[in-house]
C-alpha cells in the first residue's frame, strides 16, 4: 500500500520535513564545517529520508552544525535545515546511547545551568562541562582562556539573583513534553 501508516519512529518528524529534499548538495557546499564532518549534510538528509537511524547515529556530522543558517538560507527547496540538524541532535541524544549522550553533554549542562540560575553562569557552566567530559587534555586546552578571562575579572562564582526563577516554566514544559 502506498500510503500505509508507519509505526511511530524517532525520525518521523525529520523525514516529513525533508521529504522535498532533492539532493542538490547546496547545503554541503555552503556549510562552513563540512570539511570536519564524516559525511556531508546532503548524505545525512538522504539517510534521514530513508529512516536509517543506525547509520545516522554512527555519524558525528550533525554535532558539527554551528547553527550559522547558511544552508537554510540557500536551500532551493526552502527547507529549515538548521532546525533539522537540531532535531537530529535531540533524537540521537535520547535514542543514541552513550556516544549520543556524551555529544549532548554541553547542551544538556547548559540547560541545567539555565534552569538552576535563571541566567547562564558561564564560569560554572564551563567547569561542569569540563568535569563531565572527564578529559584532562580538553580541560587543559581551555586553561589559557580561563586565565585571560580571570585576569579581566570575568570569572566569577554563580550569581544567585535569579536563582529558581525558571523552575515553574521548566516544570510546566516538562509536563507538556511528557504529554506529547
Amino acid at each position: 500500500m502506498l500510503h500505509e501508516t508507519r509505526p511511530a519512529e524517532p525520525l518521523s518528524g525529520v523525514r516529513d520535513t525533508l521529504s522535498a529534499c532533492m539532493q542538490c548538495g547546496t547545503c554541503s557546499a555552503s556549510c562552513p564545517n563540512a570539511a570536519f564532518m564524516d559525511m556531508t549534510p546532503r548524505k545525512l538528509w538522504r539517510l534521514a529520508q530513508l529512516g536509517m537511524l543506525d547509520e545516522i547515529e554512527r555519524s558525528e556530522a550533525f554535532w558539527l552544525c554551528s547553527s550559522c543558517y547558511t544552508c537554510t538560507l540557500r536551500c532551493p527547496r526552502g527547507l529549515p535545515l538548521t532546525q533539522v540538524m537540531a532535531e537530529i541532535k535531540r533524537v540521537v541524544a535520547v535514542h543514541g546511547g552513550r556516544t549520543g549522550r556524551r555529544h549532548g553533554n554541553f547542551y544538556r549542562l547548559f540547560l541545567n545551568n539555565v534552569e538552576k540560575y535563571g541566567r547562564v553562569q558561564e564560569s560554572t557552566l564551563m567547569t561542569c562541562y569540563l568535569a563531565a567530559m572527564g578529559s584532562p587534555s580538553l580541560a587543559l586546552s581551555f586553561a589559557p582562556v580561563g586565565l585571560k578571562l580571570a585576569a579581566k575579572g570575568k570569572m566569577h562564582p554563580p550569581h544567585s539573583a535569579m536563582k529558581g526563577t525558571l523552575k515553574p516554566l521548566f516544570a510546566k514544559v516538562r509536563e507538556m513534553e511528557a504529554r506529547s
Partner: protein
Amino acid sequence: MNYAYYPGCSLTASAVEYDLSTRLVLEHLGEQLTEIEDWTCCGASAVEPVSRLLTRALPARNLALALAQGGKDTQVLAPCSACYLNLLRVNREAVSDVASRAELNEALSSEALAYAGEVRVRHLLDVLLNDIGVERIGEKVVNPLEGIRIAPYYGCQILRPYPVFDDAEHPVSMESLLQAMDATVHEWGLGGRCCGASLMATNQAAALASVRGLLEAAQGADAIATVCPMCQMNLEAYQSRALDGSSARKLSILYLPQLLALSFGLESKQAGIHRNLAVSSDFLTRCKQRVSAVA
C-alpha cells in the same frame, strides 16, 4: 526613543564591555534603555538541541515581561545576535502560528504571563542604523578614526535565517557607520561567515579553523568590529591557537559600540575597552592620539 533592554547572559559576564559600551553610546546619542525586569536566559543556540518547546518558551517569557512592563508596541533591544534570533523567531511564530502561540501561552501560564507577538524585537545594529541613523551618529564624531582600517564582521544569526535589515549573504549595514566615524572599511567577503560559535567548546579543531580563516582574510585591517558576544569571544580569545603556524598577525577585536565610543571622544575605560582580550596598545594609542589632536 525608549527601548526595553534585553542584555542577555553574556553581557553580564564575559561580554560585560558590550553592555557598558552599548549603554554608554546609546545614552550619548540621547536614547533611553529600560532593562527588562527579571529577564532570564533566552536559550542561546544551546537549548534547541535539547528541547523544541523551551527554545520558544524561554525567549517568549522575556517578551511577555517586556509587554507587561512596557505595553504593546514596546521595542525590545538585544545586542547579542543569539538572543536577538531567539526573541525574533518566537515573536514571528507568536503572530503567524496559532498552534505555536497556544503552546507558548500554556507554558507561560505557569507564571501567569501571556504573549501574542505584541512587541517588536530589534538588534542593536538595526537601531543604530535605522532609528538613530548615520547622520546623527556623524554629528557626534569628535575624534574621527581617520586612517584606521576596520573589517566589519556580522556573523550569522543577526541576519540568518531572518534578513530583517540587511542582505544575509553580503551584509553592508556596518559600512556606513564605520564611514561616519571616518574609519576605512576593510573590504572582505567573510563578514557573514561563521566564527564556529559553540563548536569552540564541543569541536575545537573546526572552530579554530573558522577563526583562522576570518583572521587571515582580515589581514590588512587594524581591527575587526563585532556585534555579537560569541563572535567577539571566539575571535579575541583564541587568536594565538588559531594562528599557530600561520604568518598572519594578530588583530584588535572590538565591539562596534566601543569603536563608536572612541570616535565620540568618550573615555575608553567607560566603554570597557580595558576588559577586551585583544586590543593592542598600539591600536588604542592611534585612536586616542586623535582625541588630544582634536582637543
